[in-house]
């Protein structure tokens, strides 16, 4: 075997090994959470609020509702800002202000989530003198905007300029080109970006500690303290009682399932958009 072939084989094996390693780590984590969490899953777990300490049974429906509400409202607040910023940056490629916006989005993405939480506490919770789910949603929206802006920009950049030029040649106004050509072509990609960003914020604990606060009751009112899955896992995992630690595993299992589901739908949409362009 020549040296070149040997080198090729070695590198190929190394690449395959690292790929396998990544898959193995994911499988081990999922398997462990599944084994530890699945055996305590039952119908009650999805339909009931937590049981009292020391009593068996009870569920995390309060946290499931909380995570759902907080994430959806955060996405609702963040989507317009993120998308519009993304469109602006994409349409004004190369201009100085667009570069500044992109830089700011990247910087905001790098801000540790606990800092976002303290921001939410200082500017919303402390000002209204009350912990609330809406404070959590606004804090999470600050994490949602930069990722959404960047994804929107990247996906819009993929739209072939020939398509847009064709629209301009037909006499379309810039607003019409953006809406009817760019956005419509990139719709699946943008949606998948939104879902990925939602999956990211759904798993955040730190911004919720000082804002959503947690609650043991089923709560629909966004102006009140509310439970969320990551928060509940954090509290239960640190408790002295085995029954609560088990519930932490089950809640972790539900959260991972939820996030994988979001990621999976995002992948499906991405594969759809890639088919469009090839």
């Amino acid at each position: 075997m020549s040296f070149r072939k040997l080198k090729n084989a070695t590198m190929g094996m190394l690449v395959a090994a690292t790929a396998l390693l990544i898959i193995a780590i994911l499988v081990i984590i999922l398997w462990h959470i599944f084994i530890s969490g699945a055996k305590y899953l039952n119908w009650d777990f999805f339909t009931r609020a937590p049981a009292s300490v020391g009593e068996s049974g009870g569920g995390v429906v309060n946290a499931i509702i909380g995570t759902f509400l907080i994430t959806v409202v955060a996405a609702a607040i963040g989507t317009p800002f993120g998308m519009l910023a993304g469109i602006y940056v994409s349409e004004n490629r190369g201009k100085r202000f667009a570069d500044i916006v992109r830089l700011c989005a990247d910087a905001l993405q790098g801000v540790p989530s606990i800092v976002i939480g303290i921001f939410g506490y200082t500017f919303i919770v402390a000002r209204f003198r009350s912990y609330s789910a809406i404070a959590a949603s606004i804090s999470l929206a600050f994490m949602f905007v930069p990722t959404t802006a960047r994804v929107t920009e990247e996906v819009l950049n993929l739209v072939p300029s020939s398509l847009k030029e064709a629209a301009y040649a037909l006499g379309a106004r810039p607003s019409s080109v953006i809406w009817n050509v760019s956005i419509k072509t990139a719709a699946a990609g943008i949606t998948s970006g939104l879902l990925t960003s939602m999956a990211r914020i759904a798993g955040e604990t730190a911004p919720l500690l000082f804002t959503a606060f947690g609650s043991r009751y089923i709560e629909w009112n966004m102006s009140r303290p509310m439970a969320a899955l990551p928060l509940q896992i954090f509290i239960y995992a640190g408790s002295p009682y085995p029954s609560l630690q088990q519930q932490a595993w089950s809640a972790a299992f539900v959260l991972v399932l939820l996030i994988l589901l979001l990621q999976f739908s995002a992948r499906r949409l991405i594969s759809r958009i890639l088919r469009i362009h090839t």
Partner: protein
Amino acid sequence: MKRRTVLALSAVIIAALVAAPACSPASLVPVSDIAIAGSTFAEPLYVKQFDAWYQKTQVKTVYGAITSAGAIRALQDRTVDIGATDVLLSAEEQTQLPFSVLHIPTCLGAVAVCVNLPGNPSLRFDAALLSAVFRGDVKNWNDARIASLNPLVVLPDKPVVVVHRADSSGTTAVVTTYLSAVDEVWREKVGADRIVQWKSGIGGKGNAGVTALIRQTSGSIGYVQYAYAVEAGLNCIALRNRAGAFAEPSVASIQAAVPADMPSNLQTTLLDRAGDSTYPIVSFTWLVLYREQSYDNRPRARAQAIHSLLKWLLGEGQTLAEPLSYGSLPPAIRKAALQIVEQMTWQGEAVN
């Protein structure tokens, strides 16, 4: 539109968004909902009690385990109705608060010193030995100082691993205050605080983290709240008390620490108290709230809801303490604590 106009308009929109919350009315929370935050130590008990209170009255009480230190901050920002702390607020901490506060004890807790050694031997320590071990002075379990107090125990040849809290903690404050009070060397070299300098050993986060580390590490010794030690089945050391006897932590030995003559504000230490069966590292855990409840235009109904919750916690609520390995308050203390609750006012009038 010109670029400058666009920029100016966006600036106006952003300013409006930032300013909007500042103009809104203060509180959005329904009058009867109560928010309490603080101590991680007392969290399981409080949660249990608040659940029972909700079953009874449909008043929702949310509890956030943001640590005793966090409770002070939350009280200062007036984001909670009541703060929960394992240590009394110092005079300096109280001056940082806008109004005067009431301290109400709700249960008794103890800090257990636990070891992980093969065969789970019953060990006896005195304060000097505990101080020496925690300072990293005693490096091996077969040290003569341990052997002299435990002549009947076969001590293994194993390095001593001290497990302590890595985070700021009321539990650490209680232990180090005890050691500073009873051991001069500790007072001079380490002192008492929520965080102290540990010479050796490993740090865990929260009582749960320390509990897990003790369970995993053979040859380890660490301190956790008694409820955690019981639930995890840890081997607790008997400590020499003021009377010279050795006492293991238990609900009875914790309650024995409460002396007959307490000051009316109950603000006295329960560390190293007299009595043959008294466990030496005992403390109250406290709820702290503002004496005058009409701040921030809070309605009278809110003060009343808090008032009835506190009264219930000191009455019927006490029965929930012992099943969870907390010490309930002796009757005399309950009575004194209820009198503190009655000092609550709303616009200068008593709340009831």
